[in-house]
């Protein structure tokens, strides 16, 4: 088979190449129109309605963020039941008020027992607490449940569902919770909770003879457990930080989905922490699994530090399905739920983002905001809710399915907080990030060579440093500013029109994290001069705040 054939075979089958539509939604449309054969066929002749086309622009943002938060599973899990619900204070609160529904169902397979303990379901979400007893095999590694899903009798569920579990040392078992955005459409509903399989994993390490002083990409063959090779390219920024850009090539797609390859550094035998959060799982040009990790150069002196490749290996797989049939009721919770329709701007003068609804249940408070902006991205990064003078920290959840213009701000409800229709409640947004597309002036790079050269130019009134240099055949362009109000340049390009060359991004920066250093690379760059442009930049206002009174 020649190279073109091999490439075609690989790329046409590469799931990373393609953004799939929402198949559940498609199924729903066909079912509604009577084509799927599972509901009455009275209107079978009618064409199934077509989906809204406007969702496409949001899916990349959503799927990328899902990739980037796929944090390695390296950390050991040794907490008790209380800590399990540390970020689910509202669940603890409802349990304390005895609002939970006892389940007590058990399935055992191959010596492994899954037990469902308690369910909580309300207007906002459904949570099911479970435990997993792996019997004699508890020493062999870490266990997890894959593909947990809740569906009602009609097969409806929600794609925003997930499970999380921790090792319970005292009881020698795992405790976990399953959480779904699905809620019953009537007071009592028959549902089934299914787990596709239960798996155990071990953590493997491979020695890497890595030279962090060399700026070259260094490649290491691995050839085990479906992992073919691992390559690392160090970027050293003086004494500030060491960035390691890595790429793993897999021969087995199953291994790729669970291996979470990463670099582990040991200094005199002690594990060295990363100096800042890395980014994991961005697909490379040829489907590699690429990541960025950071160290402080002082933490990893060359003479005392060894580097290893760490990855997760599948040890056991107990196929399911493990299916539990349940009847859930939201009656107890419904009595203590308040729904309020709102129509308020997120801040004075904001015409793009309006607060639409607030739902207060015994476990959670949700405030939904509808955005007209292009990327449905709220202007503030941090959110809190002030209830009777008490501050609850919350987070923004961008919808990946269904209504993509709607962002939900979620706040867990503490046990001892009473809320009625007259309780004073204020939404607070903090740390404003604004995107600007106004800087279209090119910057002239001259005498491009292996020597690092720095130019300073003002963008939006802020001095920005541009550093450029050749490394091998590639041109690197770095941008940053000492002014913390500068949020960073998103991407650069050289030239315009049909001759435009796009910079390939080396760094991954998150919105509002305060890091404005970006690196782009132009592979196989020819020439000594270039006119360079940016697509857009952002500005940060860490102390800017908006306050919106929601009630009374």
């Amino acid at each position, binding site marked *: 088979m020649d190279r*073109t054939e091999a490439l075609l075979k690989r790329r*046409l089958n590469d*799931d990373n*190449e393609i953004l799939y539509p929402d198949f559940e939604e498609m199924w729903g449309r066909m079912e509604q129109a009577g*084509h799927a054969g599972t509901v009455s066929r009275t209107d079978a002749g009618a064409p199934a309605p077509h989906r809204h086309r406007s969702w496409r622009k949001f899916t990349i943002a959503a799927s990328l963020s899902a990739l980037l*938060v796929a944090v390695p599973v390296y950390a050991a899990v040794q907490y008790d039941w209380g800590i399990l619900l540390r970020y689910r204070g509202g669940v603890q609160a409802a349990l304390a008020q005895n609002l939970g529904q006892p389940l007590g169902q058990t399935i055992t397979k191959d010596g492994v027992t899954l037990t469902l303990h308690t369910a909580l379901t309300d207007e906002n979400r459904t949570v099911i607490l479970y435990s997993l007893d792996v019997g004699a095999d508890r020493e062999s590694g870490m266990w997890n449940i894959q593909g947990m899903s809740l569906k009602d009798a009609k097969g409806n569920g929600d794609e925003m569902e997930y499970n999380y579990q921790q090792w319970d040392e005292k009881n020698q078992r795992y405790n976990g919770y399953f959480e779904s955005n699905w809620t019953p459409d009537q007071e009592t509903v028959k549902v089934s909770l299914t787990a596709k399989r239960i798996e155990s994993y071990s953590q493997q390490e491979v020695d890497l003879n890595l030279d962090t002083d060399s700026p070259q990409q260094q490649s290491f063959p691995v050839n085990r457990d479906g992992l073919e090779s691992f390559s690392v390219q160090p970027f050293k920024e003086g004494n500030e930080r060491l960035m390691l850009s890595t790429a793993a090539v897999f021969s087995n797609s199953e291994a790729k989905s669970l291996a979470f390859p990463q670099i582990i550094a040991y200094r005199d035998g002690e594990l060295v922490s990363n100096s800042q959060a890395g980014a994991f799982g961005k697909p490379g040009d040829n489907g590699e699994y690429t990541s960025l990790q950071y160290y402080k150069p002082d933490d990893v002196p060359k003479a005392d530090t060894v580097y290893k490749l760490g990855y997760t290996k599948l040890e056991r797989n107990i196929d399911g399905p493990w299916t539990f049939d349940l009847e859930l009721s939201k009656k107890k919770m419904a009595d203590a739920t308040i729904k309020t329709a709102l129509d308020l701007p997120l801040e004075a003068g904001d015409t793009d983002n309006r607060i639409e609804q607030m739902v207060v249940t015994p476990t959670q408070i949700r405030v939904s905001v509808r955005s007209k902006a292009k990327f449905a991205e709220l202007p503030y990064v941090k959110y809190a809710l002030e209830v009777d003078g008490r501050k609850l920290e919350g987070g923004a*959840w961008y919808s990946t399915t269904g209504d993509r213009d709607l962002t939900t701000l979620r706040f867990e409800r503490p046990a001892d907080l009473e809320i009625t229709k007259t309780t004073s409640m204020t939404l607070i947004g903090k740390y404003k990030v604004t995107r600007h597309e106004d800087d279209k002036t090119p910057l002239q790079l001259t005498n491009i060579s292996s020597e690092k050269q720095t130019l300073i130019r003002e963008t939006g009134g802020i001095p920005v440093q541009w550093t450029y240099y050749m490394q091998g055949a590639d041109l690197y362009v770095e941008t940053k500013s000492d002014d913390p109000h500068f949020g960073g340049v998103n991407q650069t390009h050289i030239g315009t029109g049909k001759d435009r*060359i796009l910079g390939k991004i080396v760094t991954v920066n998150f919105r509002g994290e305060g890091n404005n250093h970006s690196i782009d690379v132009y592979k196989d760059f020819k020439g000594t001069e270039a006119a360079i442009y940016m697509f857009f930049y952002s500005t940060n206002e860490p102390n800017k705040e908006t306050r919106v009174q929601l009630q009374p």
Partner: protein
Amino acid sequence: MGNRELFQTYSKEVYRTCYYMVHDAADAEDLCQEVFITLFRSQWQNIDHLKAWIMKVTVNTCLNHLKRRNSLQQKLMANLHLFKGSPEPPVEKLAEQKETKLEWAGYMSRLPVKIRAVLTLRYMHDFSMDEISGMLAIPLGTVKSRQHKGLRLMKKILEETGVQIIAKEEEPYGQNRSTAKASLK
């Protein structure tokens, strides 16, 4: 297996085939739905080589769609870049492009549709020349010559595009570098 299982098992493959055949996410989604409605209406439980039959329905649905769509004007527009290199796209078009990283579908769309169909069945689904001949109702010799021609054209497209196209694959990340949502807990 019922209709839902059939849909769950084959939806991704059908969609992917449609996407690479028509290079338009919205059209591919409509076609994917159309294919399944056709399947559900048929006696698919009685078919022996189910996957081959599903792909036959899929590819033919796409070919029909492309035949309908390709008025003379659209044909000219679609092939302009083959003669001139990429024209500067209008702003809306540019925004659209930034949202997709699906370059390989772009390369495939530059091939004549009949050749595209052969390459998709051969390299996405691994069907034999004989099977493809049966599915598309064309002689074996024609399958072979279309495959050969397709590979030659694809090689040329890959050589022509070079660095700039490879860099373009990164563009969606550029769009999202500073917008990636870090607030998921």
